[in-house]
């Protein structure tokens, strides 16, 4: 069976010329060629065509008039990889039955799932787009970037904290270091730390994950070094509370109420604690800037924070703050990716409409390129 991890066998056979709903196919299975054979399935002869299978054209022969049945391992039937098994198919009308020849098959695991080839293709396309844009940006660094209001406010928030002599609270989200949101949040932390170092404002970063804490310590230290203020760096600006969701939330809420930070940053990925944190912060009158790709929590940040970086803007933020050609180039690449998908969706919808209107199957191969096959 193509594209699986073994443990199953695909049977296909040419349809008999006299198919009809009254006729039924029976599939038999045996561990030895001589038998005994047990019946696995029985279905009407006008069903189970190979073209019925939900598989893409590039990895699947979709010709009509070929029947197909997949034998999978179950609790009673264990197909071992590399061992031959024997199958036969019979056609019956209830009284008479016509048996086909015995065929043997060996279940084998595959090395590549061709059903996912379009996924791989997209990955290659996007990677190339990003890498090309980066190298272009290195040559011509002056690319236009539209404003992201939340980012202008970062400077303002830090300035206000400095003026008021109060600390800045920065959260990196609830995910661990392997999450992209966390990585984006730590990159922005580096930029924020550079500003706090220059202005000598206290920075507080409570953590839920010890590894993220360790990484952030490195990043903040580096930022202070770059800003020429290694003396102002404090090891305890990054500290650990607990890995538990709501006790962490309670403790951070406590910090907000007692130490009254002038600005709260919520970057990274959040779960239900989002509103508990942001609403408490809103109550203390702090400037709040959020940035998250947790789409379910966005509504709560939007309603409680002064500025919110929505989804993708979180990833873009580091590019804006640093203006490094590499990062700006990445944004350009992302935009090209979006344009590509946008155009694909318009064309795809037109094709789907024509297809539905005229009843033609001609565009199915194109549309299948944008389907997720397992």
């Amino acid at each position: 069976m193509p594209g699986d991890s073994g443990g199953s066998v695909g049977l296909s056979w040419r349809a008999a010329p006299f198919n009809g709903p009254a006729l039924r196919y029976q599939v038999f299975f045996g561990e030895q060629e001589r038998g005994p054979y047990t019946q696995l399935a029985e279905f009407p002869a006008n069903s189970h065509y190979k073209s019925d299978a939900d598989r893409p054209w590039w990895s699947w022969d979709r010709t009509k008039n070929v029947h197909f049945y997949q034998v999978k391992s179950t609790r009673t039937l264990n197909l071992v990889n590399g061992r031959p098994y024997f199958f036969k198919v019979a056609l019956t009308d209830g009284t008479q039955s016509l048996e086909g020849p015995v065929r043997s098959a060996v279940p084998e695991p595959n090395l590549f799932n061709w059903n996912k080839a379009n996924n791989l293709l997209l990955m290659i396309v996007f990677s190339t787009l990003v890498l090309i844009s980066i190298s272009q940006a290195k040559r011509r660094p002056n690319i236009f970037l539209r404003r992201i209001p939340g980012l202008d406010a970062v400077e303002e928030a830090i300035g206000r904290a400095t003026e008021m002599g109060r600390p800045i609270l920065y959260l990196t989200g609830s995910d661990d270091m392997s999450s992209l949101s966390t990585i984006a949040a730590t990159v922005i932390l580096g930029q924020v730390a550079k500003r706090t170092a220059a202005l000598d404002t206290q920075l507080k970063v409570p953590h839920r994950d010890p590894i993220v804490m360790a990484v952030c310590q490195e990043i903040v230290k580096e930022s202070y070094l770059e800003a020429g203020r290694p003396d102002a760096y404090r090891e305890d600006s990054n500290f650990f509370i607990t890995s538990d969701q709501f006790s962490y939330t309670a403790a951070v809420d406590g910090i907000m109420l007692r130490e009254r930070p002038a600005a709260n940053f919520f970057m990274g990925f959040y779960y239900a604690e989002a509103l508990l944190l942001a609403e408490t912060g809103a109550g203390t009158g702090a400037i709040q800037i959020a940035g998250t790709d947790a789409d379910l929590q966005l509504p709560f940040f939007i309603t409680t924070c002064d500025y919110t970086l929505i989804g993708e803007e979180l990833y873009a933020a580091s590019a804006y703050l640093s203006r490094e050609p590499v990062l700006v180039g990445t944004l350009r690449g992302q935009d090209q990716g979006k344009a590509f998908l946008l155009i694909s969706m318009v064309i795809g919808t037109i094709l789907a409409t024509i297809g539905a209107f005229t009843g033609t199957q001609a565009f199915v191969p194109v549309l299948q390129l944008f389907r997720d096959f397992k």
Partner: protein
Amino acid sequence: MTLFLRRTLPLLLTFLFGVAFAAQYYIPHPVSEGALTEISVWLRIILGFAMILGIASLCQVHYAKIRTRVAGWGYSLVVYLSMLITVAVGFWAGGQETGTGLGWVYTYTLLALQGTMFSLLGFFVASAAFRAFRARSKEATVLLVAAILMMFGRVPLGEYLVPAAGPLAGWLLNVLSLAARRGILIGISLGGIATSIKIIFGIERSYLGGRE
């Protein structure tokens, strides 16, 4: 040599692990499936050790508070005591929770505290709605109307008063808001892919800190 260990090796490892586990998705072979399960165990083990860093940091913060007798240092003592008692009870129970002291601590303190903290959301949802949902601009008005329609259509009384409210709320959720969510998701995914690519190819390396 140290330069290799300090910079090249980490970047090389990132590249290797990144490429390997991106490729893993396309390989259905049992070996590749096994590797994914295995590495998730690895991450848990690494995190287990890393937790020592966290515990040290927590203890340090509260120790400093107790030592310098800052206002409210007594609460730091609460942290220490409750942590030590829980650990002691936990080891006494051998990590088992049914019918042991650890189970008691879990049911009557952790669950109660967690449930209450979580339920504060119910109150905060109300106060956030009250403050934020004001028709101060056209966008804010759209936000407000969508939220009210949704709340109205989700409860029996609303549906009873206006029978169309339920289906309307469903339509709002499954059509208009689905569209926006899709847009956000596609945007996020492109940003995520770009970030991943940069990390795998060593273009983005700030997570390693230091520039040596």
